[in-house]
């Protein structure tokens, strides 16, 4: 029985958990560890990953996690759609938390960010399953293209070239993560696209999805672990706009609205009334 009032009654004032708790005035338990002693020397990334995954990442994995966030996700560019929200909040003199909260929520986008991330990771896991069952890579890629008219982690809005690839691949090589199964799979897909003269080029999402799949992240874990990843790019956009005169961030004049709607008309109270 997973639903019904008896299930609710069983949980009434009764939340049973192993993620942790605050013992007021004494201590905090974090995923079964004493926060103030056993976790006191953790990096914030290590604590974050432990909180989400329920397991500790090793130092190499943490270095990869942090490097991906530094290289791939931290553009202080206020024209990017999510960052622009932080800048708009700055120019209207709204608060920092509202700015970053809203911009973070907006980062669950289809064309970039979290929805692209989870699709890319799922695509790689499903392709792996398909190949393990004796399937063909090209057949799977073609089917995905036919179904979605796009390929997760390939192609990019605004520009085809992903400037993050070279620096990330350099770092990945330094860390020794460039020989994993999923990492190699991303390149196998690119080779197939190139050999068949399809213009799609891999973007950073497929590479990072592959890297995290190689260290055991499920698509959902990969998505959740990336939720805050754009924030280092948002803060400077907010700080910049909030420190200037109010309202001056990329203002729009009335002529910037290109109206395609109904021509001018006068309101009649309602259709039935007209008929009376």
């Amino acid at each position, binding site marked *: 029985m*997973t*639903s*019904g*009032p008896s*299930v*609710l009654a069983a949980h009434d*004032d*009764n*939340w*049973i*958990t*192993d993620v*942790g*708790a605050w013992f007021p005035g*004494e*201590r905090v*338990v974090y995923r*079964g*560890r*004493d926060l*103030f*002693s*056993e976790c006191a020397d953790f990096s914030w990334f290590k604590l974050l990953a432990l909180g989400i995954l329920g397991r500790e990442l090793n130092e190499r994995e943490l270095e990869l996690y942090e490097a991906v966030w530094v290289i791939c996700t931290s553009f202080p560019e206020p024209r990017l759609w999510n960052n622009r929200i932080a800048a708009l909040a700055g120019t209207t003199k*709204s608060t920092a*938390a*509202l700015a970053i*909260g*809203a911009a973070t*929520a907006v980062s*669950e986008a289809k064309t970039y960010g*979290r*929805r692209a991330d*989870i*699709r890319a990771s*799922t695509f790689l896991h499903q392709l792996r399953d398909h190949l393990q069952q004796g399937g063909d890579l090209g057949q799977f890629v073609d089917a995905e293209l036919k179904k979605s008219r796009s390929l997760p982690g390939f192609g990019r809005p605004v*520009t085809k070239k992903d400037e993050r690839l070279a620096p990330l691949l350099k770092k990945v090589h330094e860390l020794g993560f460039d020989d994993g199964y999923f990492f190699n799979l991303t390149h196998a897909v690119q080779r197939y696209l190139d050999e068949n003269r399809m213009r799609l080029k891999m973007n950073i999402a497929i590479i990072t999805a592959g890297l995290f799949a190689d260290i055991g992240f499920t698509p959902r874990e990969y*998505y959740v672990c990336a939720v805050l990843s754009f924030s280092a790019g948002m803060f400077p956009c907010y700080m910049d706009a909030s420190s200037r005169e109010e309202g001056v961030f990329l*203002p*729009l*004049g*009335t*002529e*910037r*609205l*290109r*109206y*395609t*709607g*109904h*021509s*001018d*008309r*006068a*309101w*009649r*109270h*309602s*259709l*039935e*009334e007209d008929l009376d």
Partner: protein
Amino acid sequence: MSTDEKEYITTAIWREEAEPGNPYAASRCICAGFDVYGDLLGKVSIAEYLFLLFKLEPPSQSQAALLNSLAVVLANPGPRDHSVRAAMNAGVGGSTAASALMAALAVGAGNLGGGREIYKAVEAWGQCGCDLESWRNYMASPQDEPVDVWLPMEHVPGFDPHGTACTAPVLTSLEHLAALGDFRFLRWLRENRLELERQAGCPLAISGVAAAAMADLELAPDQGEMLHLLLRLPGAAVHALEQGKKGWARYPFFANGLKLTNDPGPYQGESQ
């Protein structure tokens, strides 16, 4: 990416004329052809204006009445509702007003009673219409949901997985809304509710009534989702304000409500 050409916002909803000498201020605002401040103001109700904004055409009297009543049905889910609780949590801690509504939106966006449930339910009306066999098939087979940040549905959209019988507010709302005009989905839902509940394994929820009303208003699933998010905010706002005045000390903390299954106890050092 750089270009000398100006970029534009293309919209069928809104047109503005500039104030003399100031292109950054509007002297006239036109919504779907109607002068908002020169014509609509004083003539339209908020329900009529909302309908116009979403549909770009004026509503009939019965459509306006339906949207007006739907707004009343949804305006306050009450302080036990998850989304209103989220807003009150902002209130009691002294958080910003916007954060209270953002909290209500975030929590009220989900598969259980939230915007996502409305999206799915309006989509189901589009697929199944007024055909009982289609609804039986829809409920019998799990929907093929694309991989997304949303989790899969755990119950039939529009029905209450924790309910035992259709509640009086749901029944009354359905009766009232269905009687406001020639609304085929609401009327069919009223006539076939018991069979649908039997198939779903649980009673109709207020989200199911709202979704049928939105389908009768010919709103697309994403429009229904957005409208549902909007219409439930008044309750979140006032309950957040009320609890904000009372403060955290007079608001449940669930002092005895949490049981930790792996408490290591006070730290005893490395030898532990």
